[in-house]
């Protein structure tokens, strides 16, 4: 049985650095998410504190987690694309 990929991919010299960057960003987001779960669990009333525009911490933190995911995704993509261009010159991987 062939266990290779569906499409033959070229060598990706940027894969290691992308993996490390991904791990760092994952840990950062994981800590922010864990903070959210900890406050909800240990001090749910804190979530009622008004933060901005009449919105409480629960809404601001919740929306913040969603927006942060989008922003971190865009940053990750921009940095990865730059590394791919730098390190994969002449390679065919990055479609």
């Amino acid at each position: 049985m062939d266990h290779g990929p569906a499409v033959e991919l070229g060598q990706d010299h940027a894969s290691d650095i992308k993996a490390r960057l991904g791990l760092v960003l994952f840990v950062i987001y994981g800590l922010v998410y864990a903070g959210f779960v900890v406050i909800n669990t240990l001090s749910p009333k804190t979530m009622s504190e008004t933060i901005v525009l009449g919105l409480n911490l629960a809404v601001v933190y919740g929306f913040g987690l969603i927006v942060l995911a989008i922003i971190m995704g865009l940053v990750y993509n921009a940095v990865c694309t730059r590394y791919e261009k730098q390190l994969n010159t002449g390679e065919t991987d990055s479609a």
Partner: protein
Amino acid sequence: MIYDASPIAVGLFVMFVLFVLGISFYFARRTKDSKGYFAAGGNIHWSVNGIAFAGDYLSAASFLGIAGMIATVGYDGFLYSIGYLAGWIVALFVVAEPLRRLGKYTFSDALDAKFNSKGIQLTAGISTLVVSICYLIPQMVGAGALVTPLLGLPHYVGVIMVGAIVIFIVATAGMASTTYVQFLKGGLLIVFSSILVILVLNNGFALKPSDDYHDFEAIGATVDENGTVVALAHNPYVITTQEQAGDHTFVKLTAEGVETWWNLDTDDSGEPVLRETLAIVKTGDGKTLYNGAPKEDELFYQVGHFHKIIVDGKEVESVKGLNPAEFLSIIEDSEIVRFKQETFSSGDEDVTLWYQTITPGEKIMRPGLKFKVDEGSTTSSKLNFISLMLALFFGTSALPHILIRYYTVPSQTAARKSTIVAIAAIGFFYILTLFMGLGAMVNGVLDVESSNMSAPLLAQYFGTALFAIISAIAFATVLGTVSGLIVASSGAVVHDLMSSFGGIKLSDSAQVRAGKIAAVVVGGFAILLGIYFKGENVSFLVGLAFAVAASANLPAILMLLFWKKTTSKGIAASVLVGMVSALVLIMLSPTMYEHYSTDATAPFPLDNPGIVSIPLSFITLVIVSLLTQKRENLPTAE
């Protein structure tokens, strides 16, 4: 409540289904080999794949379940949105590119890429099947729930319809048609949900949500020293009987031959009052009465309204044209009437009723109404909450129908970009769920019997056309997700279990044929489960599927990628222990014990097993890998 089939809804639904079948025919002609069937040829554009990801992910649980949960318990429902979205971070930063690099058609390919191990092929294949089936159950239940209001048909007809259409789609064209159906559905869902939220914001709030909204009565009552209601402030009601259920006293009143149930409460000045409830009574002679009358009399109302609307510290009757921040802050400052369920027996009658409970907006806009992390919390209830949030965070990147979508794009870069498109689309949609859910909570549209219908019923508030479109999209939501799950399942059966593990040599066309047969079998099985689990909570079931996926699959993926000492036996043992422990703990959980109709205490105190089964799976992988280092002596993860 009574649902009448709308001709517009039926017409739109039929048009949509025909369009989907058209797409299937079109792609069936182009699908010639197994690569085309299982991975859409690996040449889907990343932007299309990203929206298709959103289509896969925004299943019945997201659209129907979350909006419904927010409509009944406020912010606690939104926690699901946050957890579901956060899970994509794991997918993007850790899983997307390596998985695309290692795999071919299935999740097992990626796990097995370095080892070619029978143990991995078997356990990963079974795990894919089990998780897919766990995830299929709520989708099919959701399909049945939707068809009743949409087409006026019974639950089982809806389940069979979805099953039959999906089997046809999958058995004809596989992943290509599934991708385009998901792309179409994901895009439409986001566009029309946005329109719905704009209408909700523009409509604002009113104490009486609509002209035909039922005026819930409150009757002054005299209560004696024993707590018995002995007199009413006005006629025509006659006190018939009184029952105690939980902390509440319910009184049956009769007027003009119609019996209704009332909740003994106090008014703003502390005087006793009886407040009207919604009650379903199964009588001793087998009749079912809705607020004392047959269902056709339509006395069982849609509900959800404000008790007080506070704007800038002042009480108002209505307010229009709100921006998103005003919408949320007014709800937080105001008081809302929610309807809570209670069941009890009275003589030879079984009574299920929903009584009014005035809830401060401040409690609705923070955690605590569903997840017991605040008043009445215990260590178990807090651990249960943490366990759920853990499963949601780690479950997304371990769902088979999400994982296989990484193989439909041509490169690792495309896998990454499509994940970012998915995060943006899904994140935006999840923000909308808060407005849709809260909008349904206060606009008098809730069907207390089925919170899953909150979003479509909110759309109905703004007209039949929007209801028809939203319902058709919701149905397509189920259709698309079920298609993806069945493709994942048939891939696991044919590719992982038959070819890789069983060593059955099949030609390329035979693999496709076997995949189609597997799709029919899995689809048939899903139909049976969808009928059997009628009435189960959709979001609860999906939460469990996430826990099984996170426990069985994620530790293996992560450790393969990032721990050099990982061995094939470690992976196989981790998948097996994660899957079995998650399933067993679910079976021993308090909610499942309620379903068993037993008085026994559940041996496992949590409803969600993730906090135990995920670490257990990790530990198993580490221990077994360390024990099998010398024997395997294989090159390991990079």
